[in-house]
Each structure stands twice: as C-alpha cells, then as structure tokens.
C-alpha cells in the first residue's frame, strides 16, 4: 500500500499570514489612537531624545474569553531535582501587571499586549489632522522667491544662453574625429545652449511664540504639563511646516527670550507678571514679525496665579496681541487645589474675540485634547465663525 510521500511545492505566493498580520498591525495603530490622550502625556516620551522606541500597552487587542482568575491559583512547574517549598524560581518585573499570557502559565506577569513604535510614528498618529488654524489667505505672503537654475543643455536656444565652453569642446571633439583636434570651422551642430528652470518657492510665513510661566507657583505638575504640551506642539510644527519660526519666552515677574533647550529644561522661581511676557511678545512682533507678512500664533501656559495688580495691563496687552495674531492660545493648569477660576483666566475671558482660545488642564490626559483644541479640526470650525 502506498502510505507515505514527500513533496516540495512552490509556496512563494503564499502570504495569508502576512495579510492578517498587517490587519493586526492596523488594529494596533487604531488602539494606539484611541489611547493617545494617555500616551501623549507619558513622561518617558517627553523626556526622551525623540529617538527611542515607545512601548504602548494595548488592552483592546486582548482576546477576551471566560477564564479563571489567574492570580488566585498556583501553577505547575518542573525543577531539575531537589527543589524545596520556598525556593524562588524566577522574578517578574515590577512594572508588569498580574496575569498570564495566552497559554496558562506561559509567561506569568504579562497581561497585556505591548506595541513598540518610534516617537516619529507616534507623532504621525497624533498630528494626523492637526494644522495651524485661521491662516488668513490674504496675508499669506506667497514669497515667490524666483530663483533661476540652469539644469540642462540643449542644441537650440537663444544666443544669450550659449554655453561657450561646451560649444568649443563639441567643436574640438568633432574635429578630432576627423584627425584634426583643434578649434575652428564652427558648425550649428556644435552649438550648445543652457536651459533653465524657474524655481518658485512659496513661503507662508508663520511664527509661533511659546510663552511659559516659570514662576515659583508653577509646581512640578504644572511645569510638566506645559512642557508636555509644548514638546508636542514643537514636534508638530517642525513635522508639518517647513517655514514656521518658533520663539520661546519664559517669564516670572520678568520675561526673557530663551533658547529651545533652556525653555524645556530650566526652572525659575518668584512671582508672576504675565504682562511681562505679553510685552516682550509684542516687542518681538514689532521688531521682527510684521503682521502684514506673518501669521502670528502666541501661546501662553500658566497656572493663572498672576499678580492681581497686573491683570488690567495683561488684558490690554493681550488685546493688542490678539489684534496682531491669527490665534492666541491660553492654557491654564489647575490641579484640584483651586476650585475658583483664576484671575488671569477670568481677565482674558472678558476679551470677546473668536481668536482667543483657552483651555483648562487639570490632568495629564488633558494635554492631547488641548492640542486638538488649538490645532484640531474643531479649532478650525471655531475660527471660521
């Protein structure tokens, strides 16, 4: 009886597994998107150099079923002889939750699936539908910086563009073929002309002025939130726009322009006079960013704990800023401890302008909604009104 056989077929077109794997990866991405609010304010990302991989727990891709509580019962293991009660056979990392992998007792300590992605990939998901709102078309200076670049050589063209070097070379080459390598007896066939392309660069000039309160009343949480917001804002602007300038202003009772690095790392102390920052921003606009040719976006993050005597001035300056800007964003970080509205928020909200957008943040997960409020499709809806 014929009972065994052996074959080798061509499996090169077989890729069902790869297709379902791709679907799985897509679901991973969707799951990440649903959890962006949590991920965006993840400390390990904000403090990273932007190159490292981020591990994102994905609970929605768990294959739920009826199972016994994995923490209530011991598992069976096998020693190599001579094991005793009390022996430690392994460890699980402190960060890992309880539970097991798919097979009972397979990998104690891992109860959810983790996806790995780079900060850049994460950024793409976050920024997918974000943009600078309210870019006013009429003022969008299309700086048609017309550069002429010679890019090609042809046999015909205006004599003004004659490429003399190449023409002479062609002539000598032709003569050389006939055994007489010298210049002379120029024919039309030797002529070479330069042709060019017009290089039109369109630049929509925009500047974002990032202002941050670094006074003593800004606690660890407040500073962390402002930085998390600005971290993603800066990444967003750099990813999306080639020609956006970003200026950084740190203030307590006085404001000064700082470098990006200082902005993200330095802490200060003292009281708070927000007007100092607004004053500096106005001065900056005055000197360098003419509203006729620039789209201007000031942002300010603070705990709102402003000196009361400063509020009237703040409001006047903010009004001037708004007048010159496409959008003015104010984020106030209030963590539980205050129940009343701060004086600064109260002051600013009396300004009646659709270009003023404010958010209140009281929790880490509010950072992502804040980004969306300033740059998301919702913001554009508001701006259009």
């Amino acid at each position, binding site marked *: 009886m*014929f009972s065994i056989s052996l074959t080798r077929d061509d*499996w090169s077109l077989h890729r069902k597994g790869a297709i379902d*794997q791709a679907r799985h990866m897509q679901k991973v991405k969707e799951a990440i998107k649903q959890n962006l609010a949590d991920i965006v304010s993840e400390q390990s990302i904000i403090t990273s150099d932007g190159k490292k991989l981020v591990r994102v727990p994905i609970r929605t891709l768990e294959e739920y079923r*009826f199972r016994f509580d994995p923490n209530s019962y011991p598992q*069976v293991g096998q*020693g190599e002889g001579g094991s005793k*009660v009390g022996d430690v056979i392994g460890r699980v990392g402190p960060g890992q939750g309880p539970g097991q992998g798919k097979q009972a007792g397979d990998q104690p300590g891992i109860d959810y699936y983790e996806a790995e992605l780079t900060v850049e990939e994460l950024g793409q998901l976050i920024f997918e539908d974000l943009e600078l709102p309210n870019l006013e078309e009429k003022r969008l200076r299309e700086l048609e910086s017309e550069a002429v670049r010679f890019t090609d050589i042809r046999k015909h063209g205006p004599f003004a563009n004659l490429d003399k070097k190449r023409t002479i070379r062609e002539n000598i080459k032709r003569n050389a073929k006939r055994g007489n390598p010298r210049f002379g007896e120029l024919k039309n066939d030797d002529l070479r002309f330069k042709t060019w392309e017009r290089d039109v660069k369109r630049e929509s000039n925009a500047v974002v002025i990032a202002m941050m309160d670094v006074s003593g009343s800004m606690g660890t949480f407040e500073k962390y939130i402002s930085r998390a917001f600005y971290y993603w804002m800066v990444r967003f602007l750099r990813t999306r726009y080639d020609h956006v300038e970003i200026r950084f202003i740190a203030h307590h009772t006085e404001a000064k322009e700082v470098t990006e690095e200082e902005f993200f790392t330095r802490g200060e102390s003292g009281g708070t006079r927000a007007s100092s920052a607004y004053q500096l921003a106005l001065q900056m606009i005055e000197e360098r960013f003419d509203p006729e040719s620039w789209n201007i976006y000031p942002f300010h993050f603070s705990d709102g704990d402003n000196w009361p005597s400063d509020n009237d001035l703040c409001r006047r300056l903010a009004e001037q800023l708004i007048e010159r800007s496409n959008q003015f964003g104010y984020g106030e970080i209030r963590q539980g401890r205050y129940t009343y509205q701060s004086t600064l928020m109260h002051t600013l909200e009396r300004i009646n302008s659709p270009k003023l957008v404010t958010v209140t943040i009281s929790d880490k997960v509010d950072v992502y909604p804040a980004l969306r409020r300033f740059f998301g499709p919702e913001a554009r809806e508001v701006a259009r009104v």
Partner: protein
Amino acid sequence: MSKMTPAQLAQLEARIAEVWEVGSRLGLRPFPTHFEIVPATVMYEIGSYGMPGRFSHWTHGKAYQVQKTLYDYGLSKIYELVINTNPCHAFLLDTNTVLQNTLVVAHVLGHSDFFANNAYFARTSRRMLDTVSLNAERIERYEFEHGETEVERLLDAVLSIQEHVDLYASDEEDEPAETPTARQPKPYDDLWRYDRSAEPRNPDPSPRRSRRRPAEPARDLLAFIRDHSPILDDWERDVVSIVRAEMQYFIPQIQTKVLNEGWASYWHARIMRELDLSADEHLEFARLHAAILQPSPRRLNPYYLGYQMLLDIERRHGERHLFEVREVENDISLIRNYLTRELVDELDLYLYERQGDELVIVDKDWEAVRERLIGELGGNQTPVILVEDGDYEGNLELYLRHSWDGRKLDLDWAEKTMEHIYRLWGRRVWLETRADDESRLVLSYHPREGHKQHR
C-alpha cells in the same frame, strides 16, 4: 540557513521509508502520511492558524507575528507540524538538516498513529483540510457581501466563546423538549418517516420560543446561540457554525496534548535508536531530544511530562500496556490513573505562585500537584459555562451559569466576554457565578445600562 539539496531530499526520502518500516514492525498503525517540505514563513503561518487554509482574522495575524518574531530571533523552531486527517499531512522545514527532519518524521509517525487509534479522535472529521478551506471561502464571501468590519466584529465575538462547544452534542438542532402539539411516538413511526420530510420544520411558531429554555442546562453555548439567538441573520449563524465545527475538530487535540506529545516523543526516541546513524548524527539527535524534553521551571512541558509518564507505565506495566493507554486515555484520565507520588518526586513537579515580584514554590505535595494538573489540562483550564435560560424573565434575555468548581472567574475578562455575547444575542446577558464558595454573584450586561453586579 540553506535549503535542502536534491541529494539531501533523496536521503530524507530513504529515511522516511526506513522510519515507517521500523514503526510498523514495532506495532504502530498510522494513517497514510504525506510530508511536505515548506519554507519557514509557511511553517509558522500554518502553526499560527492551526491548519493551512483557515479563515482570515487578526488574531491569526497576531499569532503569526509572535511566531515570526520568535523564529527571526532564533528563539523557537517549530519542530513538527502535523494535521489530523486521513491521509495525515505533515510539514517539514526546508532549512532543517536531514537528521533534524528524520527526527521530525519519527515524531510525526507517533502522532499519525495516535490520531488513527486514540478513542477521542474517533469522531473527528478526517477531511478537515477541505472543510476549513471551504469555510474560509464562505467567510470571504460574507466579507464581500457584508463588509470586512462587520465580519470581523462578528468573528471577534464568536471567537471569544469558541471554547464553549460540546463535543458530544449532535449537530442537529435539539428536538423540542416539550411542545403542546408534539405527537406521541407510535410503534410504527419509522415506516412513515418519508412522510415527515414533507412537514414544515416548525409547524407552530411557538415551539422555537419555548425551546429557548433548555430542558437541561446546555454546555454548547455556540450551538445554543446559533439556534436561538433572537437577532442573528442566517449568514451570521453560519459563521457561528463554522467556528464551532472547527473548534470541535481541535478539542480532542486539547484533551490529549500531554499523552499525544508523550507518545510521539516516546516513538521518535525508540525509532531513532534503531536507525543506522553516524556518530555525528547520534550526537545531534541526543542534543535535539534533550532540547525537546527540556523541563521548564515555570510551565509544564507536555512533551516531557507525557514522555516520562509513558516510560514509567512501560516500566510498571510492560510495553503492551502502552498501546492500551494510547487507545483509551486522555490527559485527565492519564494523570488520574498513572501519576504516582514517586513520579511527582522523580520529575520534581511543584506548585509555584507569584509573591510580590518573585515566583515562589509553595507546594510539593503530590496530590496537590495532581489536582492542579487536572485543573490545567485537557480543556479544564476553560471554565464550564452553562446556558440556563434563553428566555429569561420572559424577555428573551440570556441567562448563563458558571458551573462552580471552587475556582474564581476573572471578572474583568468575564465582563468583556459578555459584551461579545451581547453582540450575538442582542438582549441583556446574565452570568451567574460565585465570589467564593459561599456567596453567589450575578453579573449582567446591556449596553444601555453597562455592567451590573447583583449579589
């Protein structure tokens, strides 16, 4: 790693014939078996789907990714892949050495013999390769007709309860337990059977509804949902049927994992020793055999446990008795009937649990180990869920009961699973379980009111 050359293929073919001859001389009675040489990608694809040609679903893709990663990092090598069909289908990796593949062939011979002779496989379909391909085609058609998302969501739900099928339930719909119009059976009914096919299946609309309350609590959740769900369309019921049929096919493999792997390992060891191997090959075989049977401190290696138990049975009862074990036992009965105190000590089996960040051995008592093994093996790691009522409170709600055996449910997971069941039933879903031995706990779910716990 390079692919097998034609010369190596010829060598392997000769080896296969030799292995088969030794096997039948020693008393094995396998199915005719077809070996196919495949590249690694195909190997781990088949591994993650359970069978070639099964329907598409992201969970298969997830398994595939895990397999691929493990393989790419050299952490795992699928040693053998064999499908329970007649003829039996087995896959060999084309990057393996001749010796590695010879070992796999000997191992596969053990499985093929087990499939053909173990009682728990007697009812499995031996044409499953064709069936799963046809199933995959139907599901693909439903994707075309109803949208991939729709089918995916349905499969998500059905797969969450796929373990809850009854192997011994009939494929036909249950006869009505009690209907007012039921005819009393008469002695010569058989004679009139031709007549019955002409009758409408449900002459009275009410019986369908009354059958929603099973006479006995039903274990086959999938069948019950297929037959009685108030909301599923015909194509959706078909998808439930497909998942159920495929699961029924896989259940015996879950029930006999330890015994089946033990049996295959026992035979690959015996047969390899009978072959005429070079000194190098002997060494390579010894290394592979040790790797396959490596005990693991954290989880049970079914190859190791099964192999050691069979050696012990052979020592105590003789070789002939082994064949009887392979015919009548499954994992649970194997452990109950043959695991001894001496063996638990010899194999150094223990119970461990997590204490803080450490995994600590907490018990070495052989009976405690045996009870836990029985709880973990043979499908016992899945809680038994019974359908009590499909018309609960006269409102077509689904009332399920977890059959309490002293082990607590993972309530978070149970709640998520109930959401899936709601997708299939469309009415409030109830689940009765216990918080501990004394206190009853009833969960309910409806999207409008969310999850509720009633004590």
